[in-house]
């Protein structure tokens, strides 16, 4: 399908992994992915990704929720005005609870959507460039490069003492 190749190196130590990432980047490999069994700040730093945009999803969802809350309560109450206990038909204090809950609900749901969309958690089974050890105790670096770059990448990985190196075409 494509001429892109993937090279996956597996490491035991975090510091080695980070060092390798730096080396690879110096060598001109831009398309890198690091696998780890847990979130780690050092990896985040070295990868230097832009700030996650999940927050905008969250913000949007929460605002939408609040708007829905106001809309629901005000419109539905006015649709068929039924008077209870001498209170105005639209009385905001009791509606605040509904608005608040809807804010949270929609905010949370859109955060979920944001997570699913942004982290590409869409496929149900891992593709080949993955090693089950990542969920246990190993770190991994996946380099996506052209066929020509494979050799260089392998060299760097081997030199850094990768335990295992895998290749695949993507």
């Amino acid at each position: 399908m494509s001429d892109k190749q993937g090279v996956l190196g597996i490491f035991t130590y975090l510091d080695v992994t980070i060092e390798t990432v730096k080396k690879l980047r110096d060598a001109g490999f831009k398309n890198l992915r690091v696998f780890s069994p847990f979130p780690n700040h050092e990896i985040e730093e070295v990868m230097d990704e832009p700030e996650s945009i999940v927050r905008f999803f969250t913000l949007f969802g929460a605002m939408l929720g609040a708007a829905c809350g106001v809309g629901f309560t005000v419109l539905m109450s006015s649709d068929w005005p039924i008077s209870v206990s001498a209170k105005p038909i639209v009385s905001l204090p009791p509606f605040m609870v509904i608005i608040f809950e809807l804010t949270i609900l929609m905010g949370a749901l859109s955060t979920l959507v944001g997570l699913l969309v942004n982290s590409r958690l869409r496929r149900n089974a891992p593709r080949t460039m993955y090693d089950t050890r990542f969920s246990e105790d190993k770190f991994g670096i996946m380099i996506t490069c052209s066929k020509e770059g494979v050799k260089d990448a392998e060299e760097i990985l081997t030199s850094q003492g990768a335990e295992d190196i895998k290749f695949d075409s993507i």
Partner: protein
Amino acid sequence: MSEEKKGGIKRRDFLKIIGVASGTAAVASSCSEPVEQIIPYVIPPEGIIPGVPNYYSSTCRECPAGCGIIVKNREGRAIKIEGNPESPINTGSTCAMGQAALQGLYNPDRLRSPLSNINAEKLQPLGWAAAETALTQKIEEARKNGKTGNIVFLSNNITGSLGNLVDQWMGALGGTHIQYETYPHEPLKEANKISFGIDKIPTYHIEKTEYLLSFGADFVETWLSPVQYTKQFSQMHSVKDKSVGRFVHVEPRASLTASNADEWISIKPGTEAMLALGIANEIVKSGQSPNGGAGLRGLLSQYSLDKVSEMTDVPKETIAQIAKEFSSMQPSLAIGGGVSVTGTNATETLVAINILNYVAGNIGETVDFGDTLSISTANSFQDITSLVSSMENGDVDILFVYDVNPVFTLPKQLNFKEAVGKVPFVVSFSSFMDETTELANLILPNNTPIESWGDYSPRESVHGLIQPVMTPVFNTKGTGDVILSVSGQVEELNGKFTQTTFYDYLQDSWKKVWTGASGASDFDTFWKESLEKGGYYKELPSKQVSLSPGVSSVKFPEPEFIGEGDFYFIAYPSYKYYDGKGANKPWLQELPDALTTGVWSSWVEVHPDTAKKLKVELGDFLSIESPQGVIETQVYVYQGIRPDTISVMIGQGHTSYGRYAKDRGVNPTTILPIATDARSGGFAWLSTKVSAARVNKSEQFVQTQYTTTQHDRDIAQAISLTELEKGIHHEEHPEPDFYPPRKYNKYRWAMNIDLQKCVGCGSCVTACYAENNIAFVGKDMVAKRRDMAWIRIERYFEEANNSAGFRTSFLPMLCQQCGNAPCEPVCPVFATYHNPEGLNGMVYNRCVGTRYCANNCTYKVRKFNWFTYKWPEPLNWQLNPDVTVRSKGVMEKCTFCVQRINHAKDLAKDVGRDVGEGEFKVACEQACPAEAIVFGNLEDHESTVSKLSHDDRGYKVLAAVNTQPGITYLKKVTQDKA
């Protein structure tokens, strides 16, 4: 249709139209729509429009008072009884018993056809023709043997046409007609004979009095004509220009009537005569008597304050004060003779009361012999005892029993039951299998008064007509028709009766009434008018009477008591069951007793000190033993009874009489001895001393209110007379509120309840049950506080500075239709809300049953349908088609009779106007004998309810919660010493 014209019965035929009005369907889920059938008439009855009610005037026969009633009929079924405003007796009100007459009509335990055991071991159903033939044969048999003199017709006090027919019939056969009333008030007649030479019971004018002194006359409950006298009392006792009448009640037990008195004076049983004479003596001595007590001074002087006080246990100051008030607060009236205070000296007691009235100048003023009660014509107790002995001697061959249940109501010691066993042929006309009917060989079930023609004259001036409001529910037949039909078959009677139906007989006898009526047009018009008005009412001039000189020589003996026990025993008649007649009606069984709030049971009232002595508490069982027998019943500890007295209500303890009455409570008459009032020969109800001991048994005493005091909640409020006279500064200022006050357009429905008028009789409660399809739930459910009543009468006993030491107050509590209702905002689905006319709407079909509304109800007046309650066939025929029958899982409560409001608005709209004042009444208001309830439109500033809600005495219950109720209560006025 000739038949139609004649009987008018077909007119109200319902049988073929059951489906026309869908009637009342349950709320149940609306998912499935079963196939409904719609059954048209074959021949449409005249004047009936399905969906539109018809009203028929009639006369109530639940007790001898004979109130006028109007029966509402929908699609051929009687569904509601209301008082007839035309009737001079009750002028529009009813009591609970009257309301519950419908449950007699539709009682599931009614006999459904004639029964006989002539050819069988047990009673077997048979057809009317066969039944009448059987009866004819027996009469013929008796005739052939020359024993027609051994025929006895035992009935209640049937005045009017049926009474005449029976008299005539018995006359023709040579038999006897005995009229037996459980409470015939013989001493009253006898005392009047002695005092005034008139063997009658007069009419009293309580409404004219300023001061009422009652010696045990329980006029709120059963005495003579309860609805009438309650209404009069309420007029006399209500607030008029900052003044109220004063009512003092003397009785060993604080009955419901006594609870409404400004002062209850606990007296030693049987000594009322002494007190009356003592008071009379004081009046005469102080020169306050208008006639100076002429000729009586000698007699009266024997009753000095000291002596009377000692004999009666009433403090001297009290006697002196009563004497002073009785003579100064004119006109005054002393009445006496309640059943429960009728002892062996009852006649003398009443003579003494007559003397008191005479001395105070009340005879001819507030006591009127111009219009006497018909109960005067009942046979005496001696006639009953001689009947029993002739039955025992085998001198009675055929006994007819009509509308009486002597086996239950007569004291057991009289052995009426055993005596009936000796009668070879007993015929009962009862529509119910009661204790007496059980002994019958032939049962010819009579129609109830709602199904039959008839008339009744409770007093001279009133001729009440009874007309059939619907065709008989079961295969029953009017006794008048049976008599005429049988007479036609008996050879000897051939030709004696020209009429073949009782309807003809009735009309013929009304021709006499017509001739007596002045200024009446032709008979047909008169008849029609009378039917419309419920009878013929005339004015009778009052009659001047004078005291017989013989009075001064009357001896006033001490009462006699049989038995060695420590306690005087009062068996008192019940305002719910009367003499036991009402016990088969679930509405009455479930109507809480006003004082104890007990339901579906019996109890014995015991003073707290006595209870301590006997080591019993509420709910423990006490065995009460007289020489005649023992009864065991639950204790109710009641401060309104003397420590040396205990009392049990009459009416429960049936061994038969249907599922609702059978094996429930005890019948106190079983332990009463056969003692008579020496002078009149009447039965002495208060004649025994019993011993009481705790038995090792205890149960929950099933009540609807477990508290006796208000716990400082100020629910039933009162002001003293002095305050009232001074005038209250009643400032009306709007409470500060977060939201602006609500505006109404044309209507704001509201109610006033005058606590000074309310007597706690519970007729509103029963009327509400009848109007609003409220389910009765039975004792077990009430024990779990699951009664469904929309109105409850709260009763509180509170400490007071009067001679009793406590005051009883009643407060009818129902949905307050709050302007700022706490129940409304909490309902998640808007099943309850505030409607534009000020009603707190309850939409049953929207209710999901969270019950939050009831939790948040300040007044706790909402009732929840824990189950789908069932009305056993045919009790469900009574259900009001205009009101939804609620099913399990929904909340319900007082609706201010919204169906009546809507009906009135519908009628007003037909003529293009708004509903005006007085166009309709809500059910409780309509029934209330005391006229304590006023309903109306607050937006109409001229309406009574509008004016009363700004009354000085007006207050809202628990106003501090700011629910802004639509009901304004008017404070009770207390006359306690400061």
